[in-house]
């Protein structure tokens, strides 16, 4: 789960990580009031779950409260990578002597949280990683013990020479690790971590991604979710317990299992079509889930045809058939539906579909080729 910069700042601040005071605003007048309270030059930053905010014009310097008002008015409501900016963060502009990068990520390879630190911060860290990987120091932490202070110190020496700054940075690393663990994060990042001309070490930005699997028993973290920052269809799908991602094509896909769902999208492409979505109804599929899935897909006006691809294992294909029949009774589906199902209770599923004049295919290739054809005819 992505959270906003202002929320990540609060989680880091709770661990004591030093940063400049700031506040979040939903209207230009609020932004102006915050700028007046902070006094001096401020930065207005769009709060949106997308990278490249600066390049999109979502980060601006304001020398006065009235400038803050104007910039906030422009940024609020702005579209960045298809998402509408609903909030801005207003923080004092810092004087910067040096910029570093500090990140902590759960690493698949070492199976541990790994620190990444680089004195080449501030710029695009992915570019640094690609062109000059030696400039990034990596350090895996044993989660059984956590980060020892001497390890933090050694890592901090990779960033700074001045011992006061080394100590300050080491402390920030321990605090960042604490924030990572306390909030079930899969990523926690400060970019840039800066030094000021008077020698202080400060976090100027904050990014935290929370492991979705933590939300199950950490409802407090779930409260950080901002549904207005998501695609409405994706938010609706999540509420219905469906794994859904909207894409640009016209073939709607309802599949059980993430791997098969991806393979189905690939096959749509193989037969010359474009998938409209990724949708995994999961293992145990009640008819209710199928109804919700159809509602979400048919709400997309670009969808010209819908494919069901169900391989029944735990999923009972008769549940899916019942869901399709119930959905088409509840609301009119205006586009053609192609159903492929095989596996658990297949005969019963086919009987249910046939009873209302629908048919099912058992072969995946045949079903995908047909749905692509139907989508083309409707386009």
């Amino acid at each position, binding site marked *: 789960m992505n959270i906003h910069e202002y929320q990540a700042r609060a989680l880091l601040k709770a661990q004591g990580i030093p940063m400049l005071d700031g506040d979040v605003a939903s209207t230009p007048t609020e932004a102006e009031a915050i700028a007046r309270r902070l006094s001096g030059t401020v930065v207005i930053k769009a709060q949106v779950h997308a990278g490249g905010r600066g390049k999109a014009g979502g980060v601006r310097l304001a020398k006065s409260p009235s400038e803050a008002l104007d910039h906030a008015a422009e940024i609020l409501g702005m579209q960045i990578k298809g998402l509408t900016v609903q909030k801005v963060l207003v923080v004092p502009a810092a004087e910067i002597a040096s910029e570093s990068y500090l990140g902590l990520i759960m690493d698949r390879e070492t199976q541990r949280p790994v620190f990444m630190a680089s004195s080449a911060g501030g710029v695009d860290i992915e570019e640094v990683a690609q062109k000059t990987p030696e400039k990034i120091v990596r350090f895996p932490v044993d989660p*059984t013990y956590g980060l020892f202070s001497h390890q933090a110190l050694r890592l901090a020496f990779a960033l700074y020479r001045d011992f006061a700054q080394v100590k300050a940075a080491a402390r920030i690393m321990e605090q960042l690790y604490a924030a990572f663990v306390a909030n079930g994060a899969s990523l926690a990042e400060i970019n840039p971590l800066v030094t000021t001309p008077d020698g202080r070490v400060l976090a100027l930005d904050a990014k935290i991604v929370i*492991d979705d699997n933590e939300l199950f028993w950490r409802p407090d973290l779930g409260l950080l979710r901002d549904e207005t920052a998501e695609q409405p269809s994706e938010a609706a799908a999540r509420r219905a317990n469906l794994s859904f991602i909207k*894409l640009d094509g016209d073939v709607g896909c309802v599949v059980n299992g*993430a791997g098969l769902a991806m*393979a189905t999208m690939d096959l749509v492409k193989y037969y010359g079509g474009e998938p409209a979505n990724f949708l995994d109804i999961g293992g145990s599929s009640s008819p209710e889930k199928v109804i919700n899935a159809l509602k979400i897909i048919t709400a997309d006006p670009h969808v010209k045809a819908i494919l069901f691809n169900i*391989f029944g294992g735990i999923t009972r294909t008769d549940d899916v058939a019942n869901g399709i029949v119930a959905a088409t009774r509840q609301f009119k589906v205006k586009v053609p539906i192609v159903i492929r199902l095989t596996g658990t209770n297949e005969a019963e599923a086919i009987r249910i579909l046939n009873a209302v004049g629908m048919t099912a295919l058992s072969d995946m290739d045949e079903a995908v080729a047909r749905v692509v054809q139907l989508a083309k005819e409707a386009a």
Partner: protein
Amino acid sequence: MSIFADEKTRLLVQGITGREGSFHARQMLEYGTQIVAGVTPGKGGQRFEGAVPVFDTVAEAVEKTGANTTVIYVPPMAAAAAIIEAADAGMPLIVCITEGIPVMHMSRVMPFVRSRGVRLIGPNCPGLITPGSRTKVGIIPGNICTAGRVGLVSRSGTLTYEVVNHLTRAGIGQSTCVGIGGDPIIGTNFIDCLRAFQDDPATDAIVMLGEIGGTDEQKAAEFVTAHVTKPVVGFIAGQTAPKGRRMGHAGAIISGSSGTAEEKIGAFEAAGIRVMRRPVDVIELLRKRT
């Protein structure tokens, strides 16, 4: 012969009285699996289906029944503890089906599992099945499998069923099918399975089903080049996935250029792995013996 599960498997089911556990325990029994015990704390002394003894702890179940493999169906909040309990009891093979375990929990579980020298398969996986000895440990539907000499290893569930179904219908049987799971931290990876299949005299060819995210497939390709002499057929799901988006599996995340389908398919081809464009291609590519 086969890998990881065979006629010597004496299976324990952790969570046998739960909704998922009891359903799948019945399916495994029906298939022919030798289930010797179940564990549900607080329900020791009961009998599952009137036959399988239920114990309060894994240690007691092992001591009384000689169980040598365990399969875990407990809810996500109890799953990490269940894996640790099994490892602590010295269970040589632990298969965890549970989906939704926080990655931080798994990060703490793995060093402990290693310290006990046992093997974990999963979590968030469909388990494994050896049709030749009618041994099923997990949730792979038994009726789509048939005994034979092709080994299959996969990161996904239903995609595995799709491919196995093609094999069976074409008369190509399987030695063992293993689902290793799609989570970022898993106990057994592609290389572990490739090594086991290479060493298994009952396996003639290997099918490997990967997906986008991470670098496991690329490393597996390097391993194939260096150590695998048997023919390997591979597939990568997610060629049309948008970059940087999570696709249900935590593993299916693309960061930068690392982990894209193109990169993985390229690594497969460079290693001489025959790459399937569609699931059905598995038949033709396995039959092509050059």
